[in-house]
């Protein structure tokens, strides 16, 4: 059972790595991380913070771009080129196939983040900023956030076009970062139904601020280990939910 999913994941990884878009986005990401070294002298006394902030934000932003550009079209490309037809006539379930695609892109994201964090580390050393283990936590949570976004794009791409899947995912990303504000807004407004609706939105859409500890890391604030554990569980629950829903929708899809 696992072998089939692994084969699809490996193939997706190979396909993404051989894709030009991946390199273009990756190179721009590296340039932006590198540019933090150029920008840092502009802020006297806060060079370290600028390097860290620009570096960590670039990783998140370019990771998101890869998910949107590669993830949203991943499934449609297979449907349109009819490569999927041959795969699904082999002993593999549609759910396994989707999980394989998801894992393949997740591994690609992980590799991309690793390369970016290596460059980030070099830039920090060049700018004489001492790397702190807290950066590892920020890196880990950025990866979790991208994994969740990746599951969302897989879900959307099972029933809408690549463009719409990318738009929906971007909306989810934006609302996900504002969900706490939405909840607070509902509570402040006072009426019971507004508070109820804001609560529903809060629980339905993942709160992506859970994964954002960049500010804390840059300003040298501590990050609790329990937060990392809870964020991991939070991510897992949403990923499972999204993938389950995607599998149910995809199982009903006709490959004409």
């Amino acid at each position, binding site marked *: 059972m696992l072998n089939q999913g692994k084969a699809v994941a490996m193939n997706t990884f190979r396909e993404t790595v051989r894709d030009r878009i991946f390199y273009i986005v990756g190179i721009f990401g590296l340039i932006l991380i590198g540019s933090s070294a150029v920008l840092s002298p502009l802020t006297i006394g806060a060079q370290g913070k600028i390097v860290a902030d620009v570096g960590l934000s670039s990783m998140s932003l370019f990771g998101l771009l890869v998910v949107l550009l590669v993830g949203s079209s991943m499934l449609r490309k297979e449907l349109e080129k009819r490569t999927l*037809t041959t795969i699904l006539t082999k002993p593999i379930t549609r759910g396994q196939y989707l999980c394989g695609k998801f894992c393949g892109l997740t591994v690609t994201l992980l590799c991309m983040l690793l390369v970016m964090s290596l460059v980030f580390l070099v830039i920090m050393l060049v700018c004489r900023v001492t790397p702190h283990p807290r950066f590892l936590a920020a890196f880990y949570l950025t990866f979790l956030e991208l994994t969740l976004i990746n599951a969302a794009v897989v879900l959307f791409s099972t029933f809408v076009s690549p463009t719409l899947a990318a738009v929906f995912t971007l909306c989810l990303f934006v609302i996900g970062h504002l969900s706490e504000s939405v909840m607070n807004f509902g509570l402040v407004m006072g009426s019971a139904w507004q508070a109820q609706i804001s609560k529903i939105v809060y629980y339905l859409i993942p709160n992506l601020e859970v994964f954002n500890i960049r500010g804390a890391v840059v300003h040298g604030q501590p990050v609790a280990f329990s937060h990392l554990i809870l964020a991991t569980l939070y991510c897992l629950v949403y990923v499972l939910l999204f993938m389950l829903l995607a599998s149910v929708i995809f199982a009903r899809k006709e490959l*004409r």
Partner: protein
Amino acid sequence: MNQKVMTRNVAEAVLNPPEAPVMSGGDVLRVLNLVKTYRTGFWRKPQPALKGVSFLVPRGEVFALLGHNGAGKTTTMKCILNLVHPDAGEIEIFGTGHRRWQSRARIGYLPEAPYFYDHLTGRELLDFYARLFGMPRADRQQRITELLAQVNMADHADIRLGKYSKGMLQRIGLAQALLNRPELLILDEPMTGLDPLGRREVRDLLTVLKRGGTTILLSTHIVPDVEALADRVGILKQGLLHSIHDMSRGSAATYFEVTLGQMPHGAIADVVRGCRCLPAGSRHPGAIVQVPDLDRLARLLAWCSDLGAEVQAVHTPQTSLEEVFLEALGAGSGREANKSC
């Protein structure tokens, strides 16, 4: 009798009626009353693709689905492979429901005009598919080398598929369909894109597989391919299985042709239902009567004897599959004139 009715009568006589598909232990595939309607466009306009297709494929048989474009061949295959969900009907593969993904470990499939990942080489592609079958590494390598040689692609195995020609893709497609040594091989237009030599090689390969006991379901609209390979042929027309034809009874089923010395007075059709009467030719005053079976032949001869009509010859001409196919499509059998006697 109008031409349409007569054409149907001849077709009924020339072809065997479709069998009632009752699955036995030796059967690999059973398709019963398959119905599928596609819905397209904004208003979900219905487009019937299959209107109740039934057939049975016993173990070791080569069953061909013959039909023009849009007849429902590919839809039938996609329903069998669970790529398309039928609206009604039953499909059994190896005695179990076709939705069981485990049964696909025993099936090989070559789609029409196959597309594969451009970023992979031929060898990498076969390795990927072999992994989907859960084959161990050593087995994979051995089988891939074996198949690449079998489909004459060993020299191009390490070139990316994006650079392959249509024929090369077809060959590599055939190789991936054979990776798991399938018991049931489903081939959708397997000769498309191949040059004459390639077609012959594929035909030879399929003959070897047939001899080895592989059950093959293939779809095509190329009659000579069917004649060379198939044991039985199902002719699909507008989503309906028009007829099933047994190739072991000759290139096509036989009927009797009775040559009469002159045009008989009176309607033969009224006396012997299911006969077809044609003028013998511009220089011949007589007629040729096509009779579907012995019983009707006896009745016709008795009737001629009573009338005193001269019977010049009785013989059983062979009808080519192409004629049968064209007849089924309503394009005529080559004999131009039909006349009710």
